[in-house]
């Protein structure tokens, strides 16, 4: 399997999301995540509205709801870190949990908080998933410049993306070579953990030296083609008025849901 297999997050398609300007989509996703994050815990109606919005977008993107759903689960394990709050947040006792000597009391407020964090992060990850599934990575990186990310940093990330596939392939060749040399009939191949770390460390070191040489060759090739340290990038085309209006409308919608969650609900 090549590196392109799992590194490519873009899914071909012919929806509005695929043709829309990456800057608009990036700002929409960021606005959505900002609004979702600022909803106070326990405002279920607001969370339902946000989830409905993001799944509506996922439906319109027409890349397959199952695929979006599977990808959106990537951040779920992190929720474990918020679990203790169920028992530590002050509030009305809801249930007791006996663990040997201790009795932990879960509170209504704690549980609300926990579920809210879960919903917030799930909705946010889904929005980011739709963004990357419908936007070619290079468009997305170009859009970063519109957020006033320094041009040098954007250029570094772009070059990184260009060579990601090359270097991941190289790392996989190293690992394949290791696997080919460590035939094992049982489970365990190789020696102690330190021995195994030594071989992995040697691989990382050798990958570094190959990379260093490669970066030198790339630099020479760039010089040969007229690179003088200045990044010449074509300016982005101006945004269409309709796209801007759509962006403004969707940001207003997100903001008003977040505001309603604080003030009305």
């Amino acid at each position, binding site marked *: 399997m090549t590196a392109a297999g799992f590194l490519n997050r873009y899914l071909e398609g012919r929806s509005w999301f695929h043709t829309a300007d990456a800057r608009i989509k990036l700002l929409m996703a960021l606005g959505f995540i900002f609004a979702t994050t600022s909803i106070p815990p326990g405002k279920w109606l607001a969370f339902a509205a946000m989830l409905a919005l993001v799944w509506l977008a996922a439906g319109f993107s027409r890349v397959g709801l199952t695929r979006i759903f599977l990808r959106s689960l990537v951040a779920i394990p992190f929720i474990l870190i918020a679990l*203790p709050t169920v028992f530590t947040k002050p509030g009305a006792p809801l249930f007791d949990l006996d663990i040997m000597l201790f009795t932990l009391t879960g509170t209504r407020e704690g549980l609300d908080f926990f579920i809210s964090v879960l919903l917030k992060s799930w909705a946010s990850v889904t929005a980011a998933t739709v963004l990357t599934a419908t936007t070619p990575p290079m468009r997305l990186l170009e859009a970063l410049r519109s957020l006033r990310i*320094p041009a040098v940093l954007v250029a570094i990330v772009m070059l990184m993306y260009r060579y990601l596939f090359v270097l991941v392939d190289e790392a996989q060749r190293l690992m394949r070579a290791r696997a080919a040399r460590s035939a094992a009939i049982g489970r365990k191949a190789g020696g102690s953990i330190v021995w195994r770390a030594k071989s992995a460390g040697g691989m990382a070191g050798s990958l570094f030296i190959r990379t260093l040489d490669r970066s030198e060759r790339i630099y020479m090739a760039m010089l040969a083609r007229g690179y003088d340290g200045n990044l010449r990038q074509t300016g982005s085309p101006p945004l269409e008025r309709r796209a801007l209006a759509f962006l403004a409308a969707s940001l207003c919608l997100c903001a008003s849901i977040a505001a309603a969650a604080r003030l009305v609900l």
Partner: protein
Amino acid sequence: MVSSITMPATGANLPLPLHAPDGFFSMPVAIAGYLLAAAFIGIAIRRANKDLNERIVPMMGVMAAFIFAAQMINFPVAGGTSGHLIGGALAAIILGPWAAILVMTAVVGMQALLFQDGGLVVLGINLLNMSIASVLAGYGVYWLARKIGASFTHLLIGGFIAAWLSVIVAAASTALMLGLSGTTPLALALPTMTGVHMLIGIGEGLITVFALSFIRAARPALLQMPEKSAVPSAAPAEPSRSGGISIRWWIVGYLISLSVVLLAPFASGSPDGLERVADDAGFIERAQAAPYAVIADYAVPGIQNQALATIAAGVIGVTLIYLLVAGGIYGIYTLYRRRATLQHE
């Protein structure tokens, strides 16, 4: 049909719960994270630009791809789990702190933007923890080790501690931000996160050390400490310029710790949920006033406003701890320098 995507290596990588998704940090913490990260990255761009000039884009871009690829090289640990490199300390040691911050920023940023490995709104915090704090901690240790001695052993021991500590600092910093956001009580998050990462850090330390020893065998010139000037100075311990830890660094570190404390009261209304658990379990009575209550209950007597008192207590506490740590490091450093000059004479 797209075939299911599996990572080529067998076994799951050890979880590294540091790429926090959106929703886990409160808005003030997320915004403060962005501002602090932007300040550091701005300095890093300036400093790396000075050293590398037009090389900065090809060099840093390809090195960022290297760290990303090197993170895939794993080694089985036990029970189907495996360790892998994170790379903050390795990057700091072989590229220098500023270039390493840029490289790790590109790595963490791309993981968030393209792979949903970490959130977008909390990206500032993730950058602060994984690309800045861990790199600076790793480099600080390595720098100190190389100042103490220039031998291969110093390089390896320094490299191991640097890598180990870089992981722990990233974890502790993540725990601190989670605590500030009120997501997890700090009294619980800090010991668990640092505890788990003390173990993960051993793997990081081992891989880093073996990568360094490979690089030293293949290209020893790469691991020489970069000198301020190309001309080698005659005296190894020149007292004023090359020696001493720049006063600026102490001030920067102090200001960072302070800013974190100043943000604390805005973050959470009930910062210490553990006390309530203790109350429920019925052992709060036993936790009576400690004999040495320098600052009782994190409040300074004489200041009526509670938030103000908490901030004041935080400032005093950070200053005390900072002076202690700084004094300790400076003491050890001067001690070793004195011994080194004695040996030289």
